[in-house]
């Protein structure tokens, strides 16, 4: 067992960290305050190969391993959690799904521009009445000649406003429950497909979170991803990979908060000495560092299993559950260490705190992760 990164992974980490510190972090506060999509940063990430990290070069990706993907999401999220999730979703939920389940023609036509960052993807599973209960989708797909007609609404779709290609899950027969769910690749500009509402959010404010409307949206049959009725399996498989990304995002947010708190604690003087010299603060810092390290190791374990082609759903859920709760705990402690300064918007720890919360919610809430984990344990 070796806990060190390979030379290749170290070089990759050095590049992403430098990019994140120089190009992503300086814009993070503005991205949050103005709730603006970091389009230029996303364009740069595409050029570097960060929008399709694990996708083979033949399909426009960089051909790196899942550890590199986790490193990238952590480093980018440490600088800006909004930018981190934009790349995470495009990489895992969108590119990986098409790479794993798509037909060769779909990969050539849609995956290559997505993996190169020339186009952006979004993943449309949640609905007003189907969040954690993903089998209860109401959005329908009705076959009509060489097309499917999609009708319904999707909720909380990250990148929904900017995405060029959406993976949309719909049911061909509600009676069939999860066995009726199918996945469709819907391209921006398809008649009947539009943004109904852009939500205002607590955190990750640089991403759009949209309600999308499908109204007699005609999707050509060649845009069916996988087969009829395979959608639920595609959704669950892609979420396993996505959870490694969210775990890494949570680690990145937590690390940013911890590093800020450590620096502040060393510089803030009370009672004639830096507050870092007080045991109460030291214990908090010790817990923060320890849990962040444990969360990262869980994420890396899931990533290694994925690269080895071994089932990793349990480990991905454990990593996502633990890392997201660590992010919430660490960012809360960071604000506590900052005291009053942590509660005002002049300092970034409040942003980390707001950004951390969503990691306990999206791509499967903490409660769903516990269900998944328990399902593996007790059958």
């Amino acid at each position, binding site marked *: 067992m070796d806990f060190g990164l390979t030379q290749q992974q170290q*070089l990759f980490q050095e590049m992403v960290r430098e990019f994140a510190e120089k190009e992503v972090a300086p814009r993070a506060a503005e991205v949050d305050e103005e709730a603006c999509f970091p389009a230029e940063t996303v364009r740069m990430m595409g050029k*570097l190969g960060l929008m399709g*990290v694990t996708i083979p070069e033949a399909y426009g990706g*960089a051909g790196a391993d899942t550890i590199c993907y986790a490193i990238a999401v952590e480093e980018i999220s440490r600088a800006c959690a909004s930018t981190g999730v934009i790349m995470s979703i495009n990489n895992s939920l969108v590119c990986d799904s098409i790479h794993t389940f798509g037909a060769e023609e779909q990969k050539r036509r849609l995956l290559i521009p997505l993996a190169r960052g020339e186009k952006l993807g979004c993943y449309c599973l949640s609905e007003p009445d189907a969040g954690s209960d993903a089998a209860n989708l109401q959005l329908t797909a009705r076959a009509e000649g060489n097309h499917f007609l999609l009708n319904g609404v999707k909720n909380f779709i990250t990148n929904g406003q900017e995405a060029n290609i959406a993976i949309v899950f719909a049911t061909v027969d509600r009676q069939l429950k999860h066995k009726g769910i199918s996945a469709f690749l819907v391209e921006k500009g398809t008649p009947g497909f539009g943004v109904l509402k852009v939500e205002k959010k607590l955190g990750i404010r640089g991403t759009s979170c949209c309600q999308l409307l499908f109204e007699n949206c005609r999707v050509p049959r060649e845009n069916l991803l996988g087969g009829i009725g395979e959608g639920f399996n595609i959704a669950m498989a892609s979420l396993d990979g996505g959870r490694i990304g969210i775990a890494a995002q949570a680690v990145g947010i937590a690390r940013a908060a911890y590093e800020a708190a450590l620096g502040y604690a060393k510089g803030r003087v009370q009672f004639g000495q830096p507050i870092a010299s007080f045991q109460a603060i030291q214990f908090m810092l010790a817990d923060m560092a320890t849990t962040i390290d444990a969360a990262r190791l869980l994420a890396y374990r899931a990533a290694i299993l994925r690269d080895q082609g071994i089932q990793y759903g349990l480990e991905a859920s454990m990593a996502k559950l633990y890392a997201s709760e660590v992010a919430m705990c660490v960012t809360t402690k960071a604000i506590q260490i900052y005291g009053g300064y942590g509660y005002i918007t002049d300092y970034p720890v409040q942003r980390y705190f707001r950004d951390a919360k969503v990691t306990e919610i999206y791509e499967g809430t903490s409660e769903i992760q516990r269900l998944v984990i328990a399902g593996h344990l007790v059958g």
Partner: protein
Amino acid sequence: MRIVVCLKQIIDPELPASQFRIDAESKRQQPNGHPLVVSPYDENALELALKLKEQTGGHVAVLSVGQSSAVSALRKGLAMGADEAALISDPALEGSDAFGIATALAQGIQKLGHADLVLCGCESGDWADRTVGPIVAETLKIPCVTFVARVERQDRGVRVQRVVEEGYEVWEVTPPVLLTILSDETNIPRYPKVKDIMAASRRPIPPWSVSDLGLDASSVGKAVKRIEIQELTVPTRESRCELLEGDAQEQVATLITRLRERKVI
């Protein structure tokens, strides 16, 4: 145009001063597992070389003297776009001063074949003694222009902009020539692309020993060094605060006295 860029791997100079430790015996910074990076001006030199290659064609090689870890610096060079990499690594080089390192680099440059341009950072990010580049030029018996910010290819050679106090000089030089490179807005190092990092990691970089370079081990290393570091210490910084008493006029008078005592004014 064939260009050789000398890269030095150093401990990250951005490391907080509180983590800086000196090994008393070797009088060097303790590595202590700190991150290793390419010396910043060397990256500017590589970027300049890559831009020249992109503009007019050619071949860029990166060369380093160091321990086996320096392979990662060379791989970064390859990932950024260099065509070839070579590492000179030999226990005989341990403890070498600038003359020993320059001797090995000069031999390495010759082993790589003909070089029109040899580029070095104007100083390293650790020692900053600005000597290795000029000694390499002297060893190779080629001209050297230091503190170069910009290079432009011309029919018969290169036109270089050399930064001097309050301005710059423009030189026209016929290759082969060694240039030491400053940072400039035109040579900000690019980020290597992920796929190029992957490809660079697969490239073998066999280490060259001093005998591979045709050097006698006794001509380099600790035994023949000409510069002896007598003492190396981390500066201690003390801060004191004195609240001046009295009204504003008295405070100003005391302040002037204090500043004069410390020879600030």
